[in-house]
């Protein structure tokens, strides 16, 4: 496209293809940027490179087999994704989850939020241009969490540990002590990030005032999670529609008002501190007991009906819409992906800014492409 210009030369915008193989697109996202020198004039996003039809596949599977697909839908916060799914099944099948299972679920979900936010910190540090340091710091702490999950579930990413009705099996006996160890490590990690990035002059200069989105626009785009809370909207499903035991403990919804990249970073950092608090309180509450309902059928069948369950995943509202026509498999499954909605706002946030800023705006909404494409 030829643009009008004040110069005597005729200038032309450059089309710059970013991705699907690019170090900063966090997976296989592709966008075509129209750049005028270094300034982004337009962004055309392309998604779908990681579409595996997880929703459709779930319709051909037993309810318990679907859990594995949820892991792969949101591989950085698999516990949170599983939670939405099993809660939907429980609501359809009218299963009561024992208290112990609920507390353990809460601990696992919050730990997974920590792991996911740590991943964000690391990847975002690289997007901003620190050579690897924050990434490896983040992975050091994330490794502690992943190790714990491995001890519990036997897998490091695809846990498949939650079951409709409760948990697959009880946690190991040293679970509480191990959790406290992990929390100590994570607290250290948060302090490290405070020192490395939060007050770093160049980091502040790069992120403040970049990728601004107003509260009204964020709501219009259907954003959720830290990305909308950074714009000053205190939207948190854990507070709006408390599930598990979130209304029985003390915690705050972290909001920032600036709505820029720096605010989104601070918001996630604050949420990590809150998650640590939540896990500490859950550990206090943990009592011995059953982890599955007493009368659990061997073959899980649900009465006809439909249900929409949403939970607060690290990236925002992770919803599962499930229709049952009876039988042991869902008739229709639809996943409401927070990343997809957040990604809509990318163009709005990055047009008019520099190429380097568009990259960190993309990093700041923390997408997982497998969740976008499913």
């Amino acid at each position, binding site marked *: 496209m030829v643009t009008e210009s004040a110069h005597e030369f005729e200038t032309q915008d*450059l*089309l*710059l*293809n970013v991705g699907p193989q*690019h*170090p*900063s697109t966090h997976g296989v996202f592709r966008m075509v940027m129209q*750049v005028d020198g*270094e300034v982004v004039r337009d962004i055309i996003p392309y998604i779908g490179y990681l579409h595996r039809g997880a929703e459709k596949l779930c319709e051909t599977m037993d309810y318990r087999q679907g859990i594995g697909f949820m892991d792969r839908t949101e591989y950085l916060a698999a516990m949170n994704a599983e939670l939405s799914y099993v809660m939907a099944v429980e609501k359809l099948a009218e299963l009561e989850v024992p208290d112990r299972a609920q507390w353990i679920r809460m601990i696992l979900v919050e730990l997974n939020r920590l792991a996911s936010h740590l991943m964000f910190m690391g990847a975002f*540090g*690289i*997007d*901003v*241009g*620190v*050579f*690897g*340091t924050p990434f*490896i*710091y983040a992975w*050091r702490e994330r490794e502690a969490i992943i190790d714990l999950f491995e001890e519990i579930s036997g897998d490091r990413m695809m846990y498949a540990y939650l079951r409709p009705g409760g948990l697959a099996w009880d946690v190991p006996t040293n679970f509480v002590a191990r959790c406290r160890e992990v929390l100590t490590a994570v607290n250290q990690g948060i302090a490290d990030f405070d020192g*490395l*990035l939060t007050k*770093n*002059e*160049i*980091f*502040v*200069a*790069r992120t*403040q*005032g970049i990728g*601004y989105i*107003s509260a009204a626009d964020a709501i219009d785009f259907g954003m959720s999670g830290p990305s909308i809370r950074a714009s000053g909207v205190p939207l948190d499903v854990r507070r709006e529609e408390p599930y598990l035991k979130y209304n029985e403990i003390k915690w705050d919804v972290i909001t920032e008002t600036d709505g*820029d990249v720096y605010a989104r970073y601070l918001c996630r950092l604050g949420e990590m501190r809150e998650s640590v608090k939540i896990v500490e309180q859950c550990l206090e509450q943990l009592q011995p007991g059953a982890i599955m309902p007493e009368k659990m059928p061997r073959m899980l069948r649900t009465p006809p009906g439909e249900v929409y369950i949403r939970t607060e995943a690290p990236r925002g509202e992770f919803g599962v819409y499930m229709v049952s026509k009876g039988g042991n498999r869902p008739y229709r499954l639809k996943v409401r992906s927070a990343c997809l909605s957040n990604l809509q706002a990318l*163009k*709005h*946030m990055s*047009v*008019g*800014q*520099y*190429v*380097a*800023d568009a*990259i960190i705006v993309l990093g700041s909404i923390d997408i997982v492409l497998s969740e976008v494409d499913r």
Partner: protein
Amino acid sequence: MPEGLFGLNPWLDGLIRLLLIVGLMTVVAMGLIYIERKVLGRFHARVGPQRTGPFGLLQSVADALKLIGKEDLRPRNADPWTFEFGPYMVFIPIFMGFVVQPFMAGFGVRVLDLGILYFVAVSSVSIVGWVMAGWGSDNRYAMIGGMRAAAQAISYELPFVLSLLSVSMLAGTLNINEIVLAQWQVPNIVWQPLAFVIFFIAALAELNRPPFDIPVGESEVVGGPFVEYSGIRWSMFFLGEYASLFIMSVLISALFLGGYEWPFGTQLGIGFQLLLTVVKAAILIFLIIWVRASVPRLRIDQLMGYAWKILLPLSLVQVLVNGFVLVYHLPLPVLTVAGVGGIVLLSWLTERAIRKPRAARASAIALQSEAAS
């Protein structure tokens, strides 16, 4: 400098020294690659290379062998001449800058009376290679990277040269060896702290090291001008990068830290002088690697603005103050006081440029939403 150290005619003598230097520099660059990986590994809370040879010492050799063995690809649409000669244009000027480096008293390839001028002139030629590589690759990332490199080099050349000038004003010569010898009592960093800081920052930019690595910024332009290169040509860029890191460190240690002269004088012998230079350069290299491990990358407008609005005026002020002190024969400690004041001013200006008041940020946001709509 003793003419004809190798007992031959000057031309042959120069040639032998040049070959020695090329061999030496290649080894030094490979060593630096290993050191950087090891030190960065420590900063990253990991151990770095350790599998190839004792302590991973042969890692660079293994890398070099791998790179030599790789296919030398050229994209079909690339401009053959520009693409193929780009690496040499980067590589050769950097090695030529070595000619005037003072390692020991009286031993260099040549001791030039206009050493600083020669160094500045030769080292800026390599930017042509960057632009050639960027333009010739027929790749948009490469082109953006090449253009960024050119813009950055032109901007930072000025504070770089001006702080060199303030040092040579003090010594009254452009001969690097004489500048080193003039520091026999006090190194220049004491008299010229501001010039040292500006020179260090500008040197980081000249070397394309973080936080000024925007031409190669991996998260944005994926390696910039190097993106289409492979094998031996790519390794030439790499070698040039580390050679220039070493050369720049030696130069800083010679100009500001007293080189081989301070604090022990020249009577301890050539070997000791070499050791002193290398130790000083090593400290600087460590500092540069440390910076790399801890700071994010600047954006292009911030990078240019920092050079033109902050570094350039301050380096001009430094030259001016030097002029006053020398013309009116003021005591030299005045320079130290002025320099420290200048550093305070520099950090204040930097802070002010970064922490924009809310109003400025709001107007930037308004501009953005205008562009978005």
